């Protein structure tokens, strides 16, 4: 399972991060870096940067040096607790992390002499930004990137854990550095057997609709178009509910299987800088008129702007058949060609499957792919109740181009590995003697009213994906 890879160009820059250690109120020392524009006196505002899971503050320094400092911003980035060389336990953006953010904010405001401070966080760092805003840390503008609003539905949608992904993520931080509460909840989450502890932890780390409505902080949401950890819905929930100025940029950046084209970085962070310019410096640059922006995939240097959440249409197709699926590797494979196109998936799609004779077959996973393509469009899973019935699986909201004339293939099994050995999203299988008979399946696919991404010629694609340097 590939982690999010953020790719940076290796251009020279004048600002140099200063490494420092800051002591929190409980005595824990956090490893940080402060990046000031050149000359330092030009800093009239600052941005706090929050790294992703298993990362460290150095991961964020390229944003500080290449995008923020040249625009006149000071930047402060620190290793989260349990990460890098910071002390303390990994708390998954828990209350202690929020307290850290508040103390770091105070230190940063004093250091740069202004409270015109924003925040930008990626993945885990995006969660840190949400939790801080919700807790009242007075950021003037925020940019949460590829993150969650509801952690439980992201990790275990419909009560079925994305077990492979959860395991992968859990391994990014050594268990010796975990908060024991997290450790206690992890196995119940991974196995989907007991989500109660995970639900309690999630509740303390997620933002509800009511909380979002109360947030007035100007927020630029950046979410991955094709991200199997935090799908588009996680950001749409926030976009629909936020009470203050808001915009949504749907990017090719994201967790697996996002392509993370380095060429998109200037567009993405350029927009973030404009957002800070508008709400930290008061620059009337028109960014506040932006509503929803969809980056094309594959990245062609272009985006399509919408005046709201893009309109969609529903395509419904039946995939008939009767297949007995037995054991951990048993699967049913159905395919269908969708008329028209090209299409671009967007919104809530579902797979409904009739099933019978279920013996110890307690959950079902659906993976949808374009025929001949290794990377699936989306996936989802649900627990089966009883020996027979109808299972409705909600697929993750992914924005993926479906070329005209191509067949869609639906894989039904107890794991996502049925689609590809490298698809380790759902890896928890049923027992060898488990079986179920799967009948007619119905796919209700939500697609954009008008697809905007286009197929690129090979040369153009190589150019758009050009990599100059890479950091995890």
């Amino acid at each position, binding site marked *: 399972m590939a982690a999010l890879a953020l790719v940076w160009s290796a251009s020279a820059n004048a600002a140099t991060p200063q490494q420092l250690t800051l002591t929190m109120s409980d005595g824990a020392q956090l490893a940080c870096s402060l990046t000031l524009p050149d000359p330092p006196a030009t800093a009239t505002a600052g941005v706090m940067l929050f790294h992703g899971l298993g990362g460290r503050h150095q991961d964020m320094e390229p944003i500080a040096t290449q995008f923020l400092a040249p625009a006149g911003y000071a930047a402060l980035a620190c290793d989260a607790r349990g990460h890098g060389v910071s002390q303390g336990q990994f708390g998954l953006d828990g209350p202690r992390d929020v307290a850290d953010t508040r103390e770091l904010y105070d230190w940063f405001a004093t250091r740069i002499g202004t409270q015109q401070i924003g925040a930008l966080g990626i993945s885990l760092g995006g969660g840190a930004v949400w939790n801080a805003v919700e807790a009242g840390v007075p950021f003037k503008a925020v940019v949460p990137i590829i993150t969650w609003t509801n952690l439980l539905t992201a990790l275990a949608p419909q009560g079925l854990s994305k077990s492979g992904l959860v*395991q992968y993520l859990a*391994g990014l931080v*050594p268990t010796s550095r975990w908060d024991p509460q997290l450790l206690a909840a992890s*196995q119940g989450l*991974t196995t989907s*057997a007991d989500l109660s502890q995970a639900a309690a932890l999630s509740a303390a780390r997620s933002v509800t609709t009511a909380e979002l409505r109360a947030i007035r902080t100007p927020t630029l949401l950046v979410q991955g178009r094709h991200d199997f950890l935090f799908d588009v819905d996680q950001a749409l929930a926030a976009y629909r509910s936020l009470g203050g100025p808001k915009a949504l940029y749907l990017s090719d950046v994201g967790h697996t299987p996002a392509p993370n084209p380095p060429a998109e970085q200037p567009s993405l962070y350029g927009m973030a800088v404009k957002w800070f310019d508008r709400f930290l410096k008061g620059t009337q640059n028109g960014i506040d008129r932006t509503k929803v922006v969809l980056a094309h995939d594959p990245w062609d240097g272009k985006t399509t702007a919408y005046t709201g959440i893009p309109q969609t249409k529903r395509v419904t197709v039946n995939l008939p058949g009767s297949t007995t699926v037995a054991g951990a*590797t048993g699967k049913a494979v159905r395919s269908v060609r969708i008329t028209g196109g090209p299409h671009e998936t967007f919104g809530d799609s579902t797979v409904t499957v009739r099933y019978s004779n279920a013996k110890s077959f307690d959950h079902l996973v659906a993976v949808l792919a374009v025929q001949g393509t290794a990377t699936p469009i989306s996936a989802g899973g649900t627990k089966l109740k009883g020996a027979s019935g109808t299972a409705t699986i909600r697929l993750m909201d992914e924005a993926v181009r479906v070329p005209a004339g191509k067949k869609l293939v639906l894989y039904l099994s107890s794991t996502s590995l049925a689609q590809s050995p490298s698809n*380790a999203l759902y*890896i928890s299988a049923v027992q060898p003697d488990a079986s179920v008979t799967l009948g007619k399946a119905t796919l209700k696919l939500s697609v954009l009213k008008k697809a905007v991404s286009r197929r690129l010629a090979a040369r153009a694609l190589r150019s758009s994906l050009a990599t100059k340097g890479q950091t995890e």
Partner: protein
Amino acid sequence: MKNVIAALTAVAALAFAGGALAANTGTLSVSHDPTVLAGSKSTTIHVSLPQADQPIAAISIYAPSGYQTTLSQAAGTTIGTVDATAFSHTAGLVLPLSGNVVTADPASFADKSAQCTGSPTSAAVWVLNLSVAGQTIQLPVYVNPTAGPEQALGAEKISVCLPPWDVPESLGGAAQGAQVLDVRFTVNGIFTTPTSGGLLEWDGLFTPYTPGTGKPNPTGTFEARGFVPLPVVLGLRPTYFSKSNTFRLSGKLTEGGLALPSLTVHISRGIKPTRLTQQSSTRSKADGTYRTAGHLHPRKTTYFRINASMPEHDFAAGCQNPAPATVAPAGCVSAKLSAWSVKSAVLKLNVPAAKKHHEK
């Protein structure tokens, strides 16, 4: 993922410590494709080990005499595939594993072979590559002709040794606390079935560990048997009745010479031998015979074929005359008859052309 699973070890250890363990009830099943005498392209060996069983240290599977065995493949040759299911005690997950079966140079497995079989040399080593989510566990299988008293169990011995899942990996326990629940591997071009039929008995000896110690417990060794019925015969005799334009199909179904009662037979037919479609089915009687009839439409020479399949199933009489207590102190715990799927030959039913009536 290994890191993640290792990270959860502490939790798993607490969750599974002290659990009561039930009696061992593993099974062995062997099948061939095609199910014929003096032939067969592939052999599938299926071992099943219930999750509640004690950890298993060693499995020895004996191929009966009469088979011809070809073990001359060069090292690195892919000879088959493997599908397995394992329970990761560290993660608490049932995991599907799959991959290829590849031959290896026995010399490079001398130490492991000595640990597993007691001899550093093996006639052949097959490596079962068990992969999940980008990680692969390589499980070596040692193949050797039997000698001395072991010949009573079979002509070839296939040996597998498993690390204990209930001992920490640092003390020699299985990676990720993996408990193998089910392994089904197919090898191609290795075994040629005997020239004479019957119920061919493959014998499996399973030696458990003493729980929590990582030490094999020979007194817990139990026997599980897999029977291959050869040949499987689907008798088919078509008859045509011109007056009524009907056909009748009849025959007898046997596996290894035993009648096959209550078996569903699918009947395919068509006017071209290469384009047959399944159109009906019938069931065999208690003595394995069946008979069915129908109208022939169109009234043309027609080709027939029947097919039937049998899932792996228990063989109640299979544990009679178990291996002596010196070999399997815990007795014979299971016997299975193998799965098969067989098609008959395509038979032609001649239909005479209808007489033309000329009006005067």
